[in-house]
């Protein structure tokens, strides 16, 4: 186990060095920068700014500077927002995380429950209706569901606010604040859950169908165990095992924000910030964020490997 972990950590470092190079050079070698986008600026002022930001140094030197600072926990300074990148992350990421963690949790719970039931009752009317609903949810684009729900639930019925995280001008604190945020996040969470739940339900359904046909399920039934024990103790655990891989991939998703959903619901999350930064070529922020996601991805796969080891006795690390 410990030799595996050391080996794994060395690989992770190598992968991240590779990733950082890719990320840096892709952004650095893209024509244009933060300064060149501004048409009103005079040529002298542009040269001055480039000098100030260190943009006219050789590319490789810039990479080394960026890496050196990053290793010291400094991901640079957002040029457009005039704030340190990490401060900005801290301001926005948690908003995105709030949406993502709630909707991911709901998605998984719903997908496991419905997937298991419809696998158990394969080809029943319940299964058929679930499958139709899933295909519908999967094939409608997110912006459509989002706008449709805003139109019906927010504009027509006025049950929920159409967007934002707080009511404009509100300065609620304490419980009132929490309630207001929950009220505002309901719609985006519903949409995100609807979008994610389809594919995951299908995934669990097919896993479960596979497992139910295994010999050991027949053995469990032959032992006279109740159907509940057969399903939840013997089948479910085996059906969930392959999903551990997905858990690893969910990690960057939790912090990555959602560009479309945040845009539609005007949610102050990292996805929106990311999109804005693209418009203004705010490369320090873009590089910092991409690197952050890369780190999370690598950590996520490590976590899923360790979880495999814990959940499946056949997996030795």
């Amino acid at each position, binding site marked *: 186990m410990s030799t595996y972990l050391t080996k794994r950590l060395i690989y992770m470092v190598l992968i991240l060095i590779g990733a950082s190079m890719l990320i840096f050079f892709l952004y650095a070698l893209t024509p244009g920068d933060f300064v060149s986008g501004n048409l009103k600026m005079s040529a002298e002022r542009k040269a001055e700014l480039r000098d100030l930001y260190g943009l006219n140094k050789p590319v490789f030197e810039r990479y080394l500077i960026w890496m050196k600072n990053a290793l010291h926990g400094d991901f640079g300074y957002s040029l457009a927002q005039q704030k340190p990148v990490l401060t900005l992350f801290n301001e926005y990421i948690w908003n995105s995380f709030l949406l993502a963690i709630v909707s991911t949790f709901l998605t998984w719970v719903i997908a496991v429950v419905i997937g298991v039931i419809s696998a158990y009752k394969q*080809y029943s009317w319940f299964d058929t209706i679930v499958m139709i609903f899933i295909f519908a949810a999967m094939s409608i684009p997110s912006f459509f569901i989002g706008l449709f729900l805003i139109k019906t639930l927010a504009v027509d019925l006025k049950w929920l606010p159409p967007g934002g995280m707080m009511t404009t001008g509100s300065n609620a604190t304490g419980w009132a604040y929490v309630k207001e945020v929950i009220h505002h996040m309901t719609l985006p969470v519903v949409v995100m859950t609807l979008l994610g739940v389809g594919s995951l339900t299908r995934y669990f359904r097919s896993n479960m169908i596979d497992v139910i046909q*295994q*010999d*050991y399920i*027949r*053995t*469990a*039934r*032959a*032992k*006279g*165990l*109740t159907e509940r*024990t057969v399903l939840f*103790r*013997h089948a479910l*655990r*085996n059906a969930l*095992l392959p999903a551990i891989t997905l858990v690893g991939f969910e990690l960057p998703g939790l912090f990555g924000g959602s560009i479309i959903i945040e845009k539609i619901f005007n949610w102050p999350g990292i996805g929106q910030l990311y999109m804005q930064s693209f418009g203004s070529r705010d490369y320090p922020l873009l590089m910092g964020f991409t690197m952050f996601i890369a780190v999370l991805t690598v950590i996520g796969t490590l976590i899923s490997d360790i979880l495999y080891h814990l*959940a*499946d*006795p*056949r997996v030795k690390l």
Partner: protein
Amino acid sequence: MKNTLEIDRLSTYFYTEEGTVKAVDDVSIRVREGETVCIVGESGCGKSITAMSVMGLIEGTTGKVVNGKIGFDGENLLDLSKNELRTIRGNEIAMIFQEPMSSLNPVLPIGQQITEPLMQHQKLSKKEARLRAIELIKQVGISRAEQIFDSYPHELSGGMLQRIMIAIAISCHPKLLIADEPTTALDVTIQAQILDMLREIKEKSNMSILLITHDLGVVAEMADYVVVMYSGKVVEEGEVVELFNNPKHPYTKGLLKSKPIINQRQEQLYSIPGQVPNPLSLKESCYFHERCAQCMSICETQQPKLKEVGGSTQKVACWLYEEGIADV
């Protein structure tokens, strides 16, 4: 002697898109107390489906027991509700399967899988069940029982896993053990050990065994009574010695002829020509007629009934033994 299991005119059909498959067709089998009955036949002849019907484990929407009675302990198992059947399954009727490697749950420790039926049927506490399980592991001839209790299926060999399966099966002292090809997946030395053990357990506890196999060697070693199945039908049955010495049905004869005999050098082992007929296209006929060397015209149009011959216990379903037919 009392009958433990009485299968009476059982029919299990599978309704597929191509048509109805009569996997088990009008089969009657009787297992007496303390007796070992073997069902013999080629793959796909309905042996396993018969066993699964008894266990009430015909799964899915396509398969169904359409007719018959399965008498056990004075009750018809087919009349019982799912819950009532479950209290019998694993308790009074237990089953072991062909593939020990895949018959145990890979993510649960061996111990838990043995204690489950004990806690379910005998209402033992976790501690009592553990003690009993360790006792059972020792009983099936595995040393280091405590250690095995906490290990996982992938850490054990096939032979050991089959012993564990037997331990699970006998844990609640069943009256009937159904063994579906229990030694097919094991190597020969282990096969003998497993069979010896089954016999020993049977003798100690006066349990009946319904053994399903295609291996005539296993039959000779284990059976008191043999039932030969072909295409979902019983074609011949009888006491083992009688049947081996004096097989009546051409299929049984063929089976016995295709078994290698030690110390007898043969250029080529006999095999029955042809193949099992497609179960979807069976017409009223003796299902064996296409492969039978003694086929008569009546065999192609009418199905023979299972009848006693020569005043013995042996029964055969073949026109050759029908009076007044063979001469024609």
